């Protein structure tokens, strides 16, 4: 038993240390050959695909984020003709992706997996850093200046009003690490965030109108899944 488990560990190490083994070189060459074959056989993706065009409001938000993050670049709007020579024009084309891995966890769009799309994130909309929550609607990836940039379009939850919050049994019990939002908010607010703003997933449970004496339907969100990981 001891010999078997030790052999297993060493075998896994052998398989992981790919760069130094002849076998892995063969694996890499076979993988490359398959990749080439796939590229030759499958038609290239059309850039005219509707998924590849950013909605204008998302485009505007991405541009303002990038101009804050990368002030030296100052991306111009694609409509701002004429563009001077060597200007950085933010392309409207982007790749829509369904899944992304952040800190080892899978995040998805709402259509793909509701649980994986429910997130808590840091937001600075009000000027101060605060915790918000929402569902990931779409995920976009763009390669700018050779660097892949990812953006998450999130439908932000509307937390309870202060009046309704008073009715909540979670009020004053921060140790539960629970947030409550209205389930079908009339004013759905869409925001664009970066992967590094994501705190973690939020499990949720929808409750009918009247719960805790609150007239509207509510969603109870658990904000402890991240467990304060670095």
């Amino acid at each position, binding site marked *: *038993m*001891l*010999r*078997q*488990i*030790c*052999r*297993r*560990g*060493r*075998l*896994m*190490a*052998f*398989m*992981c*240390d790919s*760069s*130094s*083994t*002849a*076998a892995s*070189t*063969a*694996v890499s060459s076979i993988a490359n050959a398959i990749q080439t074959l796939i590229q030759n056989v499958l038609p290239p993706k059309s850039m005219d695909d509707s998924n590849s065009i950013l909605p204008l409001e998302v485009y505007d938000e991405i541009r303002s984020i990038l101009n804050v993050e990368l002030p030296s670049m100052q991306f111009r709007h694609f409509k701002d003709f004429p563009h001077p020579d060597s200007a950085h024009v933010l392309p409207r084309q982007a790749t829509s992706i369904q899944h992304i891995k952040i800190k*080892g*966890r*899978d995040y998805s769009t709402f259509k793909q*997996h*509701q*649980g*994986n799309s*429910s997130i808590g994130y840091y937001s600075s909309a009000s000027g101060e850093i605060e915790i918000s929550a929402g569902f990931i609607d779409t995920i976009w990836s763009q390669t700018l200046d050779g660097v892949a940039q990812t953006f998450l379009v999130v439908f932000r939850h509307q937390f309870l009003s202060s009046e309704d919050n008073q009715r909540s*049994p*979670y009020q004053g*019990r921060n*140790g*539960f*690490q*629970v947030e409550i939002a209205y389930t079908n908010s009339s004013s759905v607010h869409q925001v664009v965030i970066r992967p590094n703003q994501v705190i973690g*997933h939020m*499990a*949720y*449970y*929808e*409750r009918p109108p009247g*719960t*805790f004496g609150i007239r509207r339907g509510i969603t*109870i969100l*658990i904000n*402890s*899944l991240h*467990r*304060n*990981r*670095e």
Partner: protein
Amino acid sequence: MQALFMLVCTLAAWLHLACGLSLVATARCLKFINIIVCTAVELGYLLAQRPSLSSPIPPPSIPPLSLPTDVRKAISALSVEPNIMRSICCPKCLAKYDLDSLPQVCLRRETPRSKVCGEKLWTTRSTRGGPRTVPRRLYCTQDFESWLEYLLSRPGIEDLINKSYEHQPSHDIMHSIWDSPAWKSLGNYTTTPHNLTFSYYIDWFNPFTNKIAGKTASCGAIMMFCLNLPHELQRLPENTFFAGITPPPKEPTSTTITAITDPIIDQFEAMWHGRVIRTYRHPGGIRKRAAILPGIGDLLAIRKAMGFAAVRSHNFCSFCKLRYSEIGSLDYAKWQPRVGLEVLQAALEWKEATTKKTRKEIFDKHGVRWSSLNRLAYRDPVRHTVLGLMHNWIEGILQHHVRVRWGIGIVPPVDEDVDDNRPSSPMSDTTEYLDIDSEIINEEVQSIWEESQSHIDTPSHLRRLRSEAFIHINAESNDVEVDSDGDNDADFQPDDESDEDDGDENAWNATCVFTASQLSKIHACLSDTVIPGWIERPPTNLGAKSHGKLKADQWFTLFTIFLPLIIPEIWLVSSNKRHAALLENFYDLVTCTNIVCSYAITEASADAYRDHYIKYRRSLDQLFPNIPTRPNHHYAMHNPELMKFWGPLIKLSEFPYEQHNGRLQKIKTNSHLCAYNSFLLLSV
């Protein structure tokens, strides 16, 4: 062709070692692979050498292909063979012997004035060459130096280890052991390059898995993680040092365990002074040192390994000198902490005592025996012993709260307007219990009873076992008082996954605090809550016997995700004062769970844990006055000081080690646990 050969070898070894495919099945796979590869090569060769009409050249013959047909050859070609050291040991007292001078019976004496063990050391086994006389029991350990050489010869490992030396500890928030006072407790050892620090874990498991009607046996795995590696890489099988597996079928007792751990500690005693090890960056060799810092395990295993008294002894705590009779005390300022030097002194006295009687007196007084780990002079036996978070908190406190305090698993009252202040009623025949299988417990009790009788170091009366085996013999039970003479320090090993101290029969007289409709609300919440894909949903029929045992991870998610979503709604609608108190009690428990299982710890969070935990304990006593406090409840009082010393306890929890135990359990042994290699059979 060599690359192809290595690929096939890797595949065969992976099928056999990682996927558990048998030797025969793997050989069959290899035959198919041979045929497929040969055909593909032949086809490719023919296509490549196809003669054109203009210059017809006959194709040369195909070079012969040599692929492995046996997995043993494949494993041998990959050089993944560990250096396993086998020794002969006495089946009873586990004393080590050399093959060259193996006597007929064991001559070891427990103390200089004790009788010799006298256990037969030889047996006759049938082999293909006829019956042969062979040693009865073998003990296998892995050579640490050769393992370290293997680890450090891997590209990139040294760079990852170097990160621990370069780490700048955070002053206000601890994210890992690297930020903790524990890391500095060995002076500048841990931060000096080429010094390695390991955790020490020991636990027992049933190699036949936990099948109800299956064979029962117990194997002990001793394994170590290199704490200099980043946390997420420490746990990988390729980075884990599997030091040894105790010889089955029975686990060592608290006095024989030193025979098992001595060979391992011998190696670490030498490694403290350093050895020249060849590494990837230093192929000519460089001096490396190794030390053991935290001792980790469940309550029973760690007590046995570290030489502390068991959970129901009057010296039941390894952190303080509180007596069992004071177990309910919450006035932690009055508890006298144990001091490492005092423990070492007492352990040494115990070791040097010449009679069992003297040893017993020392043990009764101090609650300490000798442990092999005491030989590592740099270790503090008190401070460097970790309370296993998984067993103490998750499978101890949380599971106990649901099963015993709330009584989930007991058929709830149908009536909505049930009076929750009603007196407890005895267990009825119709009662169903959450993941309790009386057959398993009875079998285990029987096995342990037999074992305890074969080793005279456990008491010969049933009273001790009764507390753990309430279902089997609860008709005989009358009291739960603790024997103040220290006799009840049996090395009792209940279900290895359960809360070890959860053995009071009074607990099972509880009634369910939830009505049927309230339970159905909980079930609906368990079913309808939307969770991310990586979380395993607990059984949606929580409380029904059919779902079997919950895993520690499921208990944890139950308390941190699912129950906080519905319990406030259930108890808020009631005007019952008891429900309000139950909600507050639950809130304190969830808050403590969120803190103690957090990956970041501050002084303030540890203090907040203490405040909430004391509130929880007080309300627990008021809400459930008839249910006594368990040792786990007391141990959890020490969590704040442990968090402040070690940092996030979740990063030192038993979870990854238990996963390794699971892997070990799945290794196919053809139900033969006492493996004899051909070397031994031939050489005798």
